[in-house]
């Protein structure tokens, strides 16, 4: 007989949760917490882990229930902690943190089979929600594997498993997971999807997911130390040389004394500024990872782009909707160009010269001195500024000291330490103060050339800011003041820094390249499989645009075919042929009992099996006892059982309906 330990106070012992399923349930919850750990506060995750561990240990020791009061207190604590950390219970991160906390509380009250099943379902949902934060191949695989404990728990909750053996439960879980893969693939391909994922709107447009449209000294720091992939670019021909790899994102016109913003000038509804190109264009595909922002990136300076990318007045590219999923677009750029009309529009000229009053007097004075010395020679002023950065003890360092109210003055005359933002900001300020129209451009610069797959990999750490100045007769000219800095201090915090070019050790590079090929495939093919691509699914069959109805019909057809095939296989499968009518009837009886969880072991004697069935189905015990006795007599007390008794037995088995009071 199986011995189930039942906590006192559990109302019905037959429905209580045994030790093995509870342990597996704990493991499931731990996996879910681990999947969400990367974006939750460390102390919060640690506290949840500790609660699970404490509960596991306590149940193992004394096997008591957790009091309702404690659970309510924990519930309140979870909500309070989340609000304290995030300031709101709404949104992606706070929501995930709350459901993780709720899951742990749910575990504490899981004492019956029904609770445990609900907890597993809840855990699977929360596990899936971890994919909202990370959709990389590696993480998706990890999440898939983390389903195993959940499936093993479900198996352990069903009867017929040896009490303290977890391996068979995991085996069943693995088989289930593997068997579900074709169904998952089918659903992935054919279930009609929304043009924008549900969570696309929930994204919060902070710089964490990429470059933002506000640049203040220090803002880019978190990006420059972030090795996450921003985009991948495949060129039709040879890639442009390193010195030309400037990827234009946003143009910032307005300076408010502290930060650079797009300003009204960037939002003017004008056609793109004219470009005169020299030399051949560069054609390439950009695969941009989800950034939740509207702006796209293109090699300086884009001439034409595919329909997904609209060209702004400053020759920046825009997407109509925030980039919530991997986006692929095609661009043609000129690397040798003349940007802008022959004469600058007076309104733009004013915007490109505007400086806030009452800020940075020393910097203004310096720029005016340069102007006075250079006369009308704008290029000399530019050169003066670059020489200043080159010769006057300026240092490139990601650990830039904080700046005061007059941030430009502080930087130019005091700290002299900073990175691209500081230099671009100060340079543009100086140019404006000297009467040269100037603006800030943010984007990416450099990147890593993957020689195996022939594409350029741009990481967040390649984020960069530079300036464009208006020179008479030459239009907007790109000036990268950061490049003028002679002394570079490699920050200890950063990985590869875009400003100064790649890092990493050599032995690992080929492997990183190969891995990145897989990641690119995943991003383009799986994560990037959007409604548009789905609608083109049937192009090989002559249907250019598949509607949701067509997809639904296709799904129904495939499901129908699969079910039919499965039924056919099941029908054709060679079964243990019952040797006579008596054996057939007995197998039928066994199947009826199996539906109620009484499954006969292959080596189990018939008497033992029926005794088990009688105990498990008390409401049908009398009939079952009579049937089993009759079977044993017919099968074992006769060399040749009388046919009329066999017929009666067959009839009785057919009419037998096992009953069990379902709670």
């Amino acid at each position, binding site marked *: 007989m199986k011995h189930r330990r039942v906590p006192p106070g559990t109302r019905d012992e037959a429905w209580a949760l045994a030790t093995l399923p509870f342990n597996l349930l704990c493991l499931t919850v731990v996996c879910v917490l681990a999947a969400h750990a990367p974006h939750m506060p460390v102390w919060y995750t640690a506290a949840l882990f500790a609660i699970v561990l404490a509960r596991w240990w306590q149940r193992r020791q004394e096997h008591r229930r957790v009091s309702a009061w404690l659970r309510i207190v924990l519930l309140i604590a979870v909500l309070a902690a989340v609000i304290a950390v995030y300031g709101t219970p709404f949104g992606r991160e706070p929501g995930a943190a709350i459901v993780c906390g709720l899951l742990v509380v749910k575990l504490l009250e899981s004492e019956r089979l029904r609770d445990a099943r609900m907890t597993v379902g809840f855990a699977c949902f929360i596990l899936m929600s971890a994919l909202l934060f990370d959709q990389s191949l590696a993480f998706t695989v990890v999440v898939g594997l983390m389903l195993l404990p959940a499936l093993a728990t479900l198996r352990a909750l069903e009867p017929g498993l040896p009490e303290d053996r977890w391996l068979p439960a995991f085996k069943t879980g693995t088989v289930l997971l593997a068997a579900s893969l074709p169904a998952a693939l089918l659903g992935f391909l054919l279930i009609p999807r929304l043009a924008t994922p549900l969570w696309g709107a929930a994204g919060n447009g902070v710089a964490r997911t990429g470059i933002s449209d506000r640049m203040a000294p220090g803002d880019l720091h978190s990006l420059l130390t972030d090795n996450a992939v921003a985009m991948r670019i495949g060129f039709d021909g040879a890639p442009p040389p390193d010195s030309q790899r400037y990827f234009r994102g946003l143009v910032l016109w307005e300076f408010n004394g502290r930060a650079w913003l797009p300003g009204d000038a960037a939002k003017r509804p004008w056609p793109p500024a004219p470009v005169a190109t020299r030399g051949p264009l560069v054609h390439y595909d950009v695969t941009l990872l989800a950034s939740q922002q509207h702006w796209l990136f293109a090699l300086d300076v884009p001439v034409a782009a595919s329909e997904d990318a609209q060209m702004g007045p400053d020759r920046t590219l825009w997407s109509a909707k925030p980039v919530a999923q991997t986006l692929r677009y095609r661009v043609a750029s000129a690397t040798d160009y003349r940007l802008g009309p022959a004469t600058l529009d007076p309104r733009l000229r004013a915007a490109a010269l505007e400086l806030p009053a009452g800020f940075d007097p020393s910097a203004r004075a310096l720029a005016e001195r340069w102007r006075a010395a250079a006369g009308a020679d704008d290029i000399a002023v530019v050169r003066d500024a670059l020489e200043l950065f080159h010769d006057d003890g300026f240092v490139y360092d990601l650990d830039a000291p904080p700046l005061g109210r007059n941030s430009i003055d502080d930087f130019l005359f005091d700290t002299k330490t900073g990175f691209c933002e500081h230099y671009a900001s100060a340079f543009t300020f100086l140019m404006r103060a000297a009467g040269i129209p100037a603006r800030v451009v943010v984007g990416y610069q450099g990147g890593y050339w993957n020689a195996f797959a022939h594409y350029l990999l741009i990481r967040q750490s390649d984020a960069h800011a530079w300036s464009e100045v208006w020179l008479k007769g030459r239009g907007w000219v790109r000036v990268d003041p950061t490049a003028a800095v002679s002394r570079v201090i490699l920050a200890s915090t950063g990985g590869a820094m875009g400003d100064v070019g790649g890092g990493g050790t050599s032995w690992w590079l080929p492997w990183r390249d190969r891995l990145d090929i897989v990641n690119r495939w995943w991003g383009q093919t799986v994560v990037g499989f959007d409604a548009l691509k789905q609608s083109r699914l049937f192009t090989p069959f002559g249907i250019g645009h598949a509607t949701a109805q067509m997809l639904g019909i296709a799904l129904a057809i495939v499901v129908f075919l699969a079910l039919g095939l499965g039924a056919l296989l099941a029908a054709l499968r060679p079964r243990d042929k019952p040797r006579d009518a008596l*054996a057939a009837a*007995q197998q039928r009886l066994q199947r009826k009992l199996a539906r109620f969880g009484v499954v006969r072991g*292959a*080596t*189990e*004697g*018939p*008497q*033992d099996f029926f*005794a088990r069935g009688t105990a498990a189905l008390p409401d049908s015990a009398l009939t079952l*006892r009579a049937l*089993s*006795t009759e079977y*044993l*007599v017919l*099968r*074992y*007390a*006769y*060399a040749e059982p009388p046919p009329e008794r066999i017929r009666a037995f067959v009839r009785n088995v057919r009419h037998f309906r096992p009953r069990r009071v379902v709670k």
Partner: protein
Amino acid sequence: MDQHLATAAATSIDAMPHQRLDAALAQVNEVLVGKNRAIRMAFACLLAGGHLLVEDVPGVGKTTLAHALAATLGLTFRRIQFTSDLLPSDIVGVSVFDRDSGAFRFQPGPIFAQLLLADEINRATPKTQSALLEAMAEDQVTVDGASRALPQPFFVVATQNPLDMAGTYPLPDSQLDRFMLRISLDYPDPEAERRLLTGENRAEMTSQLAPRLSGADILALRRQAHAITASPALLDYVQALLAASRKHHDIRTGLSPRAGLALLACARAWALLGDRDYTLPEDVQAVFVAVAGHRLIPARNLARDALAQALLETVAVE
């Protein structure tokens, strides 16, 4: 155990000796507390017409079992303590010269009993052991060319200590086959042990036991056991077990046809003890380890009983 399945079809069992059989079982159970299954095995062995080997450490009740059985069964009882200097003639008896009659007269040895306790059988030399084993196989002894039948029923309970191997002659595998069942008694559970500690002296209890069965009853019960139905389905199962033992990769030598006969006989006796006139696969399973455990010769250094149990778990039952 099998009460709820005491069947409507079971009508042919002669009620009288069977009732006395239940009483006898109950009486031995009273002396040897907490050993229900081992006692049932001993009875099954007796009813199947075999001999019993009890293998266990000293002091767990081997001798008490034999004494209680003898007293309850109403059989003549002899005990031979096997030692290394025991001679075959010490067991079977000798012919001595009778001066009065002027002829040799046979002085029967202790083997001429209905229930023989052969204590620590592995301490005697192989020659002495084989004298006993021959008697067990033939139900007769041959002295000076004359065969002498042993009294019926003839039931040998042999014991041996599996741990203390110094100065012993372990029974070879071929000899072990003569014992129909090999059982062990094991330590009592705490409840039984408490009853043992607080109850009367076991030897005293045994001496006060009244016979519950007679030799004639036992012979009648043996005939009944032999007549118990073994259906084709059951014989299939027995044969499947035998075949599996011969194919198993961990077993060097599988079960012999004699083992098959012993298995069937024991299963029938087990069914009789369960008050049934037909044999179920459960009966076979109940006695299988005791019948097969000492007969299987493992290919590697494996526990024989565990091997028998494993075998049982590979053969499907209809």
